[in-house]
């Protein structure tokens, strides 16, 4: 697993208080990991800080799964 994926996973595990093995490529933050819509906003905020990038609102809406997040951040950074 890439360094980015590791760092994203760490944030997700900490923020949503879930088991690490639940955070799979296709795991949806809301449907599978128990996040509410505000949690997803906070996750995006945490990604922005961790990776020093800016994630615009319309892009943030497309980040639904762990895989989405890793893909977006890989492309942005």
């Amino acid at each position, binding site marked *: 697993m890439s360094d980015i994926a590791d760092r994203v996973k760490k944030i997700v595990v900490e923020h949503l208080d879930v088991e690490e093995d639940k955070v799979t490529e296709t795991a949806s933050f809301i449907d599978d990991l128990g996040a509410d819509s*505000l949690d997803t*906003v*906070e996750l995006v*905020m945490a990604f922005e800080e961790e990776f020093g990038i800016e994630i615009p609102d319309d892009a943030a809406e497309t980040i639904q799964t762990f895989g989405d997040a890793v893909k977006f951040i890989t492309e942005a950074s």
Partner: protein
Amino acid sequence: MFDLTGKNALITGASGGIGGAIAKALYDAGATVALSGTRVEPLEALAAELGERAHVLPCNLSDKESVEALPKQAAEVMGSVDILVNNAGITRDNLFMRMSDDEWESVLNVNLTSTMRLCKGVLRGMMKARWGRIVNISSIVGATGNPGQGNYAASKAGMVGMSKSLAYEVATRGITVNCVAPGFIATAMTDKLTDDQKDKINAQIPSARMGTPEEIAAAVLYLASQEAGYTTGTTLHVNGGMAML
């Protein structure tokens, strides 16, 4: 009773009578304050009167860029914004049938839209801190209406609906959002009224007098406090019983 030591507060409209009293109440409770307003001179005078925990941040709330920059400037100068008091407001009264688009838009823009922008600007920090207090200064007029103030009343009622919606969204993060709705308050503006006019106003108020800026500030101080953590989405009416809502 209320201790705000270590908390940082941003107050808009701090050059006015009510805003100045709010700033003083929060400062006296131990908060560091950022005083915002359009007129620099009274802000500097207030900051000098308060002391070293007071900072001056002039801002024109009708300018989008200035409004969006304000929370960042406040966080830079104080370290964070834990308490936001949206107190600034303007009036441009006219009979509804004569009201121009410009009169409508300028009042909605300064009173309501800038409040929304400032709330957005401070939320990120409050969410991270898992603590925040937003107090929006509405008006009795937002609940009762007032002839000649269709624009002002709409902006003040709009604040209440906005505050309730935001209160819902961020309640689990330790952030409260409330309104204070003053009735008739004695300020430089009401000093201009004649005794006869004042008597007429006082006759409509069960307390038979106008309120003081300090009485509004006391309501804000409560809502800004740690103790008010379970009070959110509400509007505290401070009007001498003029409208019992």
